[in-house]
C-alpha cells in the first residue's frame, strides 16, 4: 500500500469521525465505559493478587527457643528441622536480629523507646521455618511438636503459625482472580459488540459510497482502510480518556487509604508500579476493540 493511500485513509477516517459527530461520541463512550470497568477490575485483581502473595509468603512457622538452648544445640536442631521433607527453608534468627528487625519495622515515633531495649533484650532466639506449599504447614508443626516432646527439657518455648486463615484467603483470592478474568473477557466482548453496532450505523449511512467504490474498482482492502483508522481512532481516544480518569482516581484512592488506614500490611500497589501497565493494557485493548468492531461491521458490505 502506498504512503499516500495510507494518508488518505487516515484523513478519510478522521473526517468521517468528525462528520458523524454523535455516532462517534457514542462509540467512544462505549469504548470508554467498557474499558473503565475492565481497568477497574484489573486494578482490583492486581491488588487482591498482591495481597494474596503477601499473605502466602508470610505463611511460616515460627519456633521460639528456650533461653537454655546453647549454640551447639541450635545447630543440631536446625539440621534436624531441615531434614523434614516438606520444609523448604529454615532460618535461625538470633534475638539480636529479631530486635533489630522489630525496631526497623516499627513506627518511627516509637523508635526511641525501643532503642532502650537493646541493653536488655526481651526477645528469644527463634527459627523461621518455611514450606514450599502453605498446605504442608500443619504437618511440619506436628513434626516439630513431636521433636519437642522427645527431649527434656523441651527446647521450644512456643511454635506459632497461622494456618486456617491462609487457606481461606487463598481460596477467596483464587475466586476473585477467576471472576475478574471472566468479567474482563465479558466486558471486552460487550465493548466489541457495542462499538461494532454504533459503527455499523455510520456505515449504513455510507452504503452508497461503498457501493460506488466497489463499482469503480476499489479493492476491499482499500474500502476497509478508512474504517480501520476510524476504529483505531475511536479506540485510542476512548482508551486514553479512560486510562487518564481511572489512574487519576486510583492515585487518589491510594493516597486516601494511606492517610486513613496507615497500615503497612494492606498497602495498595503504588500508581508508579502499576499505572503504566494498566494504561498500556487499556490502550492496547481499546485499539484492538475499536479496529475489530469497525472492521467486523463492514465485512458484510464487502461481499461481492
Amino acid at each position, binding site marked *: 500500500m*502506498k504512503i*499516500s*493511500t495510507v494518508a*488518505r485513509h487516515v484523513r478519510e477516517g478522521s473526517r468521517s469521525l468528525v462528520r458523524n459527530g454523535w455516532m462517534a461520541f457514542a462509540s467512544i463512550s462505549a469504548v470508554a465505559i467498557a474499558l473503565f470497568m475492565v481497568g477497574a477490575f484489573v486494578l482490583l485483581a492486581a491488588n487482591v493478587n498482591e495481597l494474596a502473595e503477601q499473605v502466602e509468603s508470610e505463611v511460616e512457622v515460627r519456633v521460639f527457643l528456650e533461653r537454655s538452648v546453647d549454640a551447639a544445640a541450635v545447630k543440631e536442631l536446625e539440621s534436624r528441622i531441615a531434614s523434614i521433607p516438606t520444609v523448604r527453608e529454615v532460618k535461625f534468627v538470633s534475638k539480636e536480629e529479631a530486635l533489630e528487625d522489630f525496631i526497623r519495622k516499627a513506627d518511627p515515633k516509637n523508635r526511641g523507646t525501643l532503642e532502650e531495649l537493646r541493653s536488655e533484650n526481651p526477645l528469644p532466639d527463634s527459627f523461621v521455618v518455611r514450606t514450599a506449599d502453605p498446605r504442608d504447614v500443619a504437618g511440619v508443626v506436628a513434626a516439630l511438636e513431636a521433636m519437642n516432646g522427645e527431649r527434656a527439657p523441651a527446647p521450644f518455648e512456643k511454635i506459632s503459625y497461622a494456618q486456617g486463615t491462609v487457606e481461606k484467603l487463598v481460596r477467596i483470592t483464587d475466586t476473585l482472580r477467576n471472576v475478574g478474568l471472566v468479567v474482563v473477557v465479558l466486558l471486552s466482548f460487550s465493548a466489541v459488540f457495542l462499538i461494532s453496532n454504533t459503527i455499523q450505523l455510520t456505515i449504513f449511512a455510507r452504503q*452508497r*459510497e461503498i*457501493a*460506488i*467504490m*466497489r*463499482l*469503480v*474498482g*476499489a*479493492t*476491499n482492502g*482499500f474500502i476497509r482502510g478508512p474504517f480501520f483508522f476510524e476504529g483505531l481512532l475511536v479506540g485510542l481516544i476512548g482508551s486514553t480518556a479512560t486510562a487518564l480518569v481511572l489512574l487519576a482516581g486510583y492515585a487518589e484512592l491510594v493516597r486516601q487509604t494511606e492517610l486513613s488506614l496507615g497500615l503497612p500490611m494492606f498497602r495498595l500497589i503504588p500508581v508508579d508500579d502499576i499505572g503504566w501497565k494498566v494504561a498500556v493494557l487499556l490502550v492496547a485493548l481499546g485499539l484492538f476493540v475499536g479496529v475489530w468492531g469497525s472492521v467486523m461491521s463492514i465485512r458484510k458490505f464487502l461481499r*461481492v
Partner: protein
Amino acid sequence: MHDVWKIYDNGSEALRGISVNIGANEFVYVVGPSGAGKSTFLKLIYREERPTKGQIFVNGFNLDKLKRRKVPYLRRSIGVVFQDFKLLPKLTAYENIAFAMEVVEAPRRLIRKRTMEVLELVGLADKKDRLPGQLSGGEQQRVAIARAIVNNPKIVVADEPTGNLDPETSWGIMKLLEEIHFRGATIIMATHNKEIVNRLRKRVIAIEGGRIVRDEPRGEYGYED
C-alpha cells in the same frame, strides 16, 4: 458470452441461454421490453451478478474463474453509467470524478491532470466545484460519464443513461458517448429510447424473455413504446 443462463434465487429466469460476441470498439444497443433481462445482461459483464451457467469473457478475464479479490481489477477496465447517475451527494463534481482515481491509487498529480481533462471533455470544467444537487440532470449524467471514463476503461457499460433526461439533453449525452467510442472504447448501452436507436444507427441486440431474439449490425429499435 457463451450459453449464459441466469436464474435468480427466487426462481425467476432472467437469461436463458445467451451467446453473443461483442468485439473491441463496437457500439452496441441492448433493447427489449422491461424485465426482459437487459439489466441482468449488463450486470453480468461487470460481474455484479454471476451466471448460473455458461461462460463469460470480458477484456481477457474469464469471469467464471475470476477470484473474488480480482474483481476490482476487472471493474477498473469497465466504466459503468446508470440511469440514476449514482454520484456522491456530498462531493463536488470534481471530487466525484477524482474519487474513482483515488480508489485505484493513482498518483495525485495524474489525478488532477486527468480529472480536468475529462471535465473538459464532458464540458463541465467551469462547474467543477458544484455539488450534484446544484447541477441539472444532464450535467449530473455528464459527471457520471466522466467518472466512468476517467480511468481509461476499454468498455463503457451504460444502463439507460438517458432514461431520466429530456430528448435534447439525451442527444448531448449520446454525442458524448459517441466521442468516447470514437476515442477507442467499446460502448454497451441498454436503452428504451427509440428515437436514439433509430437515428444513431448501431448494432442492436434485442433481448426478450431472457433470449436474444435479434442481433443486427445497423438495426432499428423495433418496438412501439
